[in-house]
């Protein structure tokens, strides 16, 4: 039964062994230090106005508030679950703001920040986590695909969409979001293979938040993730994911290259999931509090705030204004959630097919009648 067994003594395998034959130096693109100082990068420049800087800050602050409110709503039993973006605001706002209107985003389940930049109503996103809808918004009108819960599946959709753009001669690109854990899925690797093979205008934007639920990055890769791309024949770059300016610059460059026919890029946004994986998760079981404390020093919002304040780009009034706007947003999200109507029961039969089948129409009719029978007190 066992082929060529020798000893059966147990030895713990050595995961993540060093790979000394590979260059271990990793270059992190940064335009803003954790202290909020602006630095230059030879490959990525960014010319940005005060207005734009303030508007970036506004996005960061508002999505964080949305996120906190949603977490609170979940704790109060109003949502089934919530996947918090806490700590990843800069990665998401930077990426989202880099997109042109005609580009299309393919998110996972955590890209609330990108949703925000695409004009998706937070309540539409919340409807998914409240269990009101399996989708929630109009992916076509917003250029923001529905959330994809099956890890990695959306990267192939993005690649196919990009192949469509290519065939249309459209000067647009697809932006596929994925997590560090997702890089281990076969489908994600296939997406990169396809993107390379067809030189498709797709950018893979990986938020390496260091964990796939409880599993640290080392289990998925023993070399930095951005290096994966070279193996498939296209560029990979690692950007400081807590630096909204660097993310913006790098993503803009990659999308522009894609639109110009230069094919895919893989962006690894190096960041940290400051909260739990979702509200169902308990991170104390698998990571030390000290780790979080370290990352708090790199908080993406504090960083931009320091930059704005120090450079005189924004004053207290501005920040107070944003605070007030955030309060309003939170209130709207709260009331909107509480008032959100439940879906009509028979709705579950309605969009299974574009052309309803007689069989399902019959099931629907029986269902409606069965329900009516309760109201008539038949049961």
């Amino acid at each position, binding site marked *: 039964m066992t082929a060529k067994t020798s000893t059966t003594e147990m030895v713990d395998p050595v995961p993540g062994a060093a790979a000394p034959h590979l260059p271990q130096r990793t270059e992190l693109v940064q335009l803003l230090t954790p202290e909020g100082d602006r630095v230059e990068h030879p490959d990525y420049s960014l010319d940005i106005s005060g207005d734009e800087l303030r508007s970036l800050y506004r996005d960061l602050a508002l999505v964080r508030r949305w996120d906190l409110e949603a977490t609170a709503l979940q704790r109060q039993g109003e949502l089934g679950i919530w996947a918090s973006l806490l700590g990843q605001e800069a990665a998401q706002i930077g990426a989202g703001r880099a997109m042109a209107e005609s580009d299309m985003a393919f998110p996972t389940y955590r890209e609330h920040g990108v949703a925000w930049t695409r004009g998706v109503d937070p309540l539409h996103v919340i409807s998914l986590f409240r269990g009101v809808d399996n989708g929630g918004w109009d992916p076509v009108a917003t250029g923001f695909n529905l959330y994809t819960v099956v890890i990695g599946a959306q990267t*192939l959709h993005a*690649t196919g969409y990009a192949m469509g753009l290519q065939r249309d001669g459209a000067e647009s690109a697809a932006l596929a979001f994925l997590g560090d854990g997702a890089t281990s899925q076969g489908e994600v690797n296939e997406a990169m293979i396809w993107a390379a093979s067809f030189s498709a205008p797709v950018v893979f934007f990986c938020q390496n938040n260091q964990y796939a639920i409880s599993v640290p990055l080392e289990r998925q890769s023993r070399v930095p993730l951005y290096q994966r791309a070279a193996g498939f024949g296209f560029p990979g770059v690692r950007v400081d994911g807590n630096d909204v300016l660097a993310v913006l610059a790098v993503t803009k460059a990659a999308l522009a290259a894609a639109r110009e026919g230069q094919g895919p890029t893989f962006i690894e946004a190096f960041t940290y999931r400051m909260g739990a994986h979702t509200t169902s998760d308990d991170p104390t079981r698998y990571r030390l509090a000290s780790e979080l404390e370290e990352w708090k020093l790199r908080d993406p919002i504090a960083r931009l705030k320091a930059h704005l304040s120090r450079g005189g780009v924004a004053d207290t009034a501005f920040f107070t204004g944003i605070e007030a706007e955030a309060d309003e947003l939170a209130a709207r999200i709260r009331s909107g959630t509480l008032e959100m109507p439940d879906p009509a029961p028979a709705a579950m039969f309605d969009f299974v097919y574009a052309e309803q089948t007689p069989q399902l129409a019959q099931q629907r009719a029986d269902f409606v009648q069965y329900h009516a029978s309760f109201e008539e007190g038949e049961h």
Partner: protein
Amino acid sequence: MATETLTIGKALNLGLRKAMEDDAKVLLMGEDIGKLGGVFRITDGLQKDFGEARVVDTPLAEAGILGTAVGLAMRGYRPVCEIQFDGFVFPAYNQIVTQVAKMHARSRGKLPMPVVIRIPFGGGIGAVEHHSESPEAYFAHTAGLKVVAVSNPVDAYWGIQQAIACPDPIVFLEPKRRYWEKAEVDLDATADPLFASRVVRGGDDVTVLAYGPMVKTALQAAEAAAEEGRSLEVVDLRTVSPLDLEPVFESVRRTGRCVVVHEAPVTLGLGAEIAARVTETCFHSLEAPVLRVGGYDTPYPPSKLEEEYLPDLDRVLDAVDRSMGF
């Protein structure tokens, strides 16, 4: 009237060509479908005429084929994906079941998935493992998919065009061992609806249901039975999801007996669903339980044994005998 004698294979080829001419958004994807024209030559000549952008030789990755098809469909294309053999559809299973099948519902109609998944299916060609499977039940159990199984050149020619025109995702099963069967196809005729079964031989004693490659077998059985004075009504189901059972109910109410034939393993094969529904609807008309003739509940055997594994005329007649004996 343009009537041509076509094999099923050639009918599919012409149907694909027609669909591509009619709609510039139709594109074909698959392994070896370009220069080679597919291992069964179903796409022969199409890349030459429609170019590499519309007849796409893909990397060797079935999840990739279906996953990118989803994205292309979102962009307004109508991808027709060829899976080289039935046994190789499983790497794409995740995309088919969790994405292709559910996208329309998930988006409440905003993202239709007019994706056709062409699969040469079934056994009888003397092949090695994984080349002779009948996976239709896996798809028919999946809400959001429609599943078609053609049995003849006429349905092949029209069916592939109808499937491509349909806004829903369709698993389109081609009876590979019948690819070379011929019939007259009237290219100007009006097609029968895709999702409808068809009585292909009238009879009074037992209703025999089949689809895809087994329709021929059922008809042979009916022929042989007739010689012994037994009259079988044969229904070609044509589509196995949704099932169009009204004509079957009507038939069974007359005959009181029903036998379902397919190559897939009996357990949880289409015969199970049909038996359950026919029994529920025709309970008081049945003189015997619905009997099933199918593959055994084993992996598809090495080809030297496939004739033993696959339902044939004798096994259909045996079931008919047992039905009559109840």
